[in-house]
C-alpha cells in the first residue's frame, strides 16, 4: 500500500515536471522567435540606412567634384585667358602699325580667346547651378530652359505653380533640378519631341515635378523589367532614394511620355539657405 502511494506521487511529480518542460519549451520558442525576428528587422534597417548613406556620400562627392572642377576652370584657366587677352590687346596695338595681314591674324586670335572665355564661363555655370542656389528652383529651371530653347526649334513651357514656391532645403532643390535636367535631356535625346512641359506642383506634404513631352514615348513597364535603364533613369532613382521620393512614368494618350516625381516635404528647418558663393571651396552640405 505504502509503495503504490509513493509511486503515485512519483508519477505525479514526473508528469508535472514533464509538463513544465513542455510549457517552457513552447514559451521559449515563441520568445526566441520573436527576438530573432526583431533583430533581423533591425539589421535590415541598418543595412538600408547604410546603403542610403553610401549613395548620399557618392552624390555629395560628385557635387563637390563638380565644384572643384568649376573653380579650377574659373580660377586657373579663366585667369590665364584674361591675361592672354590683355597681352594680345597690348600686342595688337603694336601690330596695327605693321601691316594688314598681321592685323587680321591678331583679330582672329583675339576673338578666339574671347570665345574661349565665354565657353569657360558657360561650362563653369553649367557645372554648378549658381542660379539654383541664389534664386531657387523656379528661376533655375527658367534659366535652364531659356538656354536650351535658344539654339533649337523647341518649345518648353514651364509652370512654376500657382503660388511662389518657398525655398526648400538645398538637397531637395538640387535633387529636383538634376532630375529635371535628365528628364529634359532624355525627352530631347530619345523622344524626338517638339514640345516639353515642365510644372512644379506643391501640396501640403509633397513637392511634385512633372515633365511631359510630345515625342515617341516609351513603355513604363520596360523600366521595371530592367530593359531600359540607362544611367540617367537609374540616377534619378538613386537620387530619389536619398530623399524618400518616388517617380512614376506614364505614357500620354496623345503620344509622348510623362514623368512625375514626388518628394515628401521636409520639416521647414532652414527654408532660407544662405546663398552660397558658387565657387566657395568647401564641402557641400546637400
Amino acid at each position, binding site marked *: 500500500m505504502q509503495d*503504490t502511494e509513493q*509511486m*503515485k506521487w512519483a*508519477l*505525479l511529480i*514526473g*508528469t508535472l515536471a*514533464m*509538463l513544465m*518542460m*513542455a*510549457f517552457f*519549451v*513552447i514559451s521559449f*520558442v*515563441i520568445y*526566441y*522567435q*520573436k527576438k*530573432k*525576428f526583431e533583430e*533581423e528587422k533591425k539589421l535590415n534597417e541598418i543595412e538600408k540606412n547604410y546603403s542610403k548613406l553610401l549613395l548620399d556620400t557618392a552624390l555629395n562627392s560628385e557635387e563637390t567634384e563638380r565644384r572643384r572642377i568649376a573653380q579650377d576652370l574659373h580660377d586657373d584657366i579663366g585667369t590665364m585667358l584674361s591675361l592672354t587677352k590683355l597681352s594680345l590687346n597690348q600686342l595688337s596695338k603694336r601690330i596695327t602699325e605693321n601691316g594688314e595681314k598681321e592685323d587680321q591674324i591678331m583679330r582672329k586670335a583675339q576673338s578666339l580667346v574671347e570665345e574661349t572665355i565665354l565657353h569657360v564661363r558657360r561650362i563653369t555655370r553649367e557645372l554648378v547651378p549658381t542660379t539654383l542656389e541664389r534664386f531657387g528652383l523656379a528661376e533655375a529651371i527658367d534659366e535652364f530652359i531659356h538656354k536650351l530653347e535658344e539654339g533649337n526649334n523647341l518649345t518648353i513651357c514651364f509652370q512654376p505653380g500657382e503660388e511662389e514656391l518657398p525655398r526648400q532645403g538645398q538637397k531637395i532643390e538640387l535633387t529636383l533640378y538634376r532630375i529635371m535636367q535628365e528628364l529634359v535631356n532624355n525627352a530631347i535625346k530619345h523622344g524626338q519631341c517638339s514640345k516639353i512641359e515642365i510644372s512644379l506642383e506643391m501640396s501640403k506634404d509633397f513637392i511634385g515635378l512633372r515633365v511631359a513631352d510630345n515625342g515617341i514615348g516609351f513603355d513604363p513597364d520596360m523600366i521595371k523589367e530592367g530593359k531600359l535603364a540607362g544611367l540617367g533613369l537609374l540616377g534619378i532613382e538613386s537620387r530619389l532614394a536619398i530623399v524618400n521620393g518616388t517617380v512614376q512614368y506614364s505614357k500620354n494618350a496623345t503620344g509622348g511620355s510623362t514623368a512625375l516625381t514626388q518628394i515628401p516635404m521636409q520639416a521647414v528647418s532652414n527654408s532660407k539657405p544662405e546663398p552660397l558663393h558658387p565657387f566657395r571651396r568647401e564641402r557641400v552640405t546637400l
Partner: protein
Amino acid sequence: MLQKYLFYFQYDLLSSISVIITLVPITLIYQRKAYADPSFRLLLLFLLVKLIIDLLMFHCAATRVNNLVLFNVTIIFRYILMSGMFYYKFENKQVTKFIMPLSVGFSFFTLWDIWYCNPDILNLHLHQIVKYSLTVESLLMIFWILLYFKELIGSLKVPNLLTFPFFWICSGLLLYYSSLIFIAPTLHYATQWDVRLDIGLLDRIPYIFDIISITLISLGISLFSARYYARH
C-alpha cells in the same frame, strides 16, 4: 440502450467529453477549408479515426465490454498519422527520410507488443494494454516536435508564431505526449479486470490532456487561412 449510454456519460464525464470534443476540430477543418494542406488532411483523417474508435470504445464501455484492443490499435494509427503530418512540414529532407521507416518500424513494434502482452490474442475479453509502445510513441513524437521547433527557430520563415496554425497543433501534441510519457507504462497494470495497481485519479490525466490538446489543435485550425496557405 440509450439509458446505458446516458448513464455511462454521467458516470465517466471526462472521457465522454474527450470523445465529443473531437467534433470541434473536425468541423473547423471543414469550415476553414484547412484540408487544402496535406498535413491537415492527415490530421482530419486522424480525428475521424479517433472519433470512430472513441465512439466504439464508448459503446463498449457503456455495455461493459473490454475495449482495450481498440485502444491498442489506435496507437498505431495515431503515430503513423501524427508523424506523417511532420513529413510534409519539415523543410529538411534529411529528416523526412526517417519518418516513414520509423512509422513502419513502430507499427511492427506495437504489433509485437500487443502479441507479447496478450499471449491468447483471440481472447478479447482479457485483452490488455501494451506495455512499452505508448511510451515509445510519446518519446518519438516529442522528438519530432522538438526537432520541428528547432527548425522553426532556425529558418525564421514564420513572422508571428502566435498566428501560425501548425505551431499550436505542435504545442497541443507536445503537452499531450508530455503528460502521457510517465503515465503510459502504468496503464498496462492499472487497466486490468483485477486491478493490480491503482493509480487513482492519475488515470484521468490522459483524458484531461486529450481535451487540452484538442482545444489547442482547434485553436490552430481556426487560425488557418486558405488564402494564406495558397500564397506559400
